[in-house]
């Protein structure tokens, strides 16, 4: 195939991709810009502009990334001495990702018609309520952890500019690490706690 034929084929595919972008509902300015970029550089832009903006996997991974990023930012500061090594941090990050994944899984389950409380009774109703409690508790844990990570990020900047880490910072790092380590226990404890409650009744 000659260079000219190759260029014509490239342009044809680009025009096709550009037309798809133009037909999508979006702001006119962005639509035209995207279409122009598509025509010229469709191999680079198509994977991003023709697919959904955010995949579910991305959501699951973001907590892990935020955690690792917060640790990395803090590593270059006097806080570094208090932080876990890279392998431990990765393991904790994975645990965080698994936790976020489990939460998403529970939410997906609860969206199903058979997990609707209306019309449910007996063991089914108990299970639905148990799942809801689990989701709320787990979601709260993750939210609090995200807030602590945000605190760690700001604290790392303060320590970097103001000097050595104080006891408050040490406590914060310890709390974050123990919270991440304890995420599994939240899921493990909940059924046991509920069983104990049922037995005591």
């Amino acid at each position, binding site marked *: 195939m000659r*260079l000219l034929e190759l260029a014509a084929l490239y342009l044809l595919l680009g025009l096709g991709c550009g037309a798809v972008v133009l037909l999508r509902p979006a*702001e*006119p*300015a*962005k639509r*035209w*810009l*995207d279409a122009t*970029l598509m025509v*010229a*550089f469709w*191999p*680079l*832009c198509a*994977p*991003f*502009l023709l*697919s959904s*903006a*955010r*995949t579910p996997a*991305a959501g699951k*991974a*973001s907590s892990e*990334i*935020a955690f690792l*990023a917060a640790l*990395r*930012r803090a590593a270059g500061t006097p806080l570094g001495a208090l932080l876990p090594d*890279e392998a431990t941090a*990765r393991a904790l990050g994975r645990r965080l990702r698994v936790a976020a994944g489990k939460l998403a899984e529970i939410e997906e389950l609860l969206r199903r018609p058979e997990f609707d409380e209306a019309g449910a009774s007996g063991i089914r109703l108990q299970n639905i309520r148990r799942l809801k409690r689990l989701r709320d508790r787990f979601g709260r844990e993750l939210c609090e952890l995200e807030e602590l990570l945000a605190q760690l990020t700001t604290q790392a900047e303060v320590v970097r500019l103001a000097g050595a880490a104080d006891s408050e910072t040490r406590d914060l790092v310890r709390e974050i690490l123990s919270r991440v380590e304890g995420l599994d226990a939240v899921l493990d404890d909940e059924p046991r706690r509920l069983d104990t409650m049922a037995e005591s009744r």
Partner: protein
Amino acid sequence: MSASELSEVRPDSVDLVDTLLRDRDKTFEAIAAERDLPTLVRSLVITVVFGSLIFGVALGAFRGGLQMVYAGIKLPLVLLLTTAACAPALTLVGSALGRQSNFRRDLALVLSALARTSLALGALTPLILLGVELKVEYHRMLLWVVAACALAGLVGVVHFARGLRFLDQRAVRSTAVILMGVFAMVGMQMSWTLRPFIVRPRTEQPPIVRQVEGSFFDSVARTSRSAMGLYEDLEHDREYE
């Protein structure tokens, strides 16, 4: 597209350039979390186009006239088409070496490294314009350009290697070396195919592209010899004199 419509999309790119220069980790975080990648990639491609276009126009200014337009169009094409051809290799090499590979993330990382390279090229443009103004001899000018490109490339490679490490710490060095090799070979051939970017001022009719002949390495060796005053009487040398 109207001016008001253009101003609506401009802040994304301006913010991104700022972030790319000031806080590299923030860009890596956005890529790793796949946070609003379409906006990020749109801005990165625009940054690459503008940075390399400015440098390309400066290269064309050595001869002036139509060559400024040709070089200004061709240089962004060389960079972005090379990326399009090479980015899938990063995902494949990463997967083969046991890294956590993801095509969209890898492509965004390569584009961010390229955007940084283009910004460096844009920053080095005054040096090329100085050479044009001082009427530096043709072969010496080529060496100036190679040095500027090497420096800008180094900026991009450092960014790329740090990004690889940020995304996954496994097999960073081997992945970076293999991808740089692939990128260099494809990039050289792409720029060789779309040459010339610099032509002598006395060239009457600058060509859009030349016939493919010899290799990139032959040309570097010949240019180095010519810069030392050892000229070879080659047919294609005469063609643009």
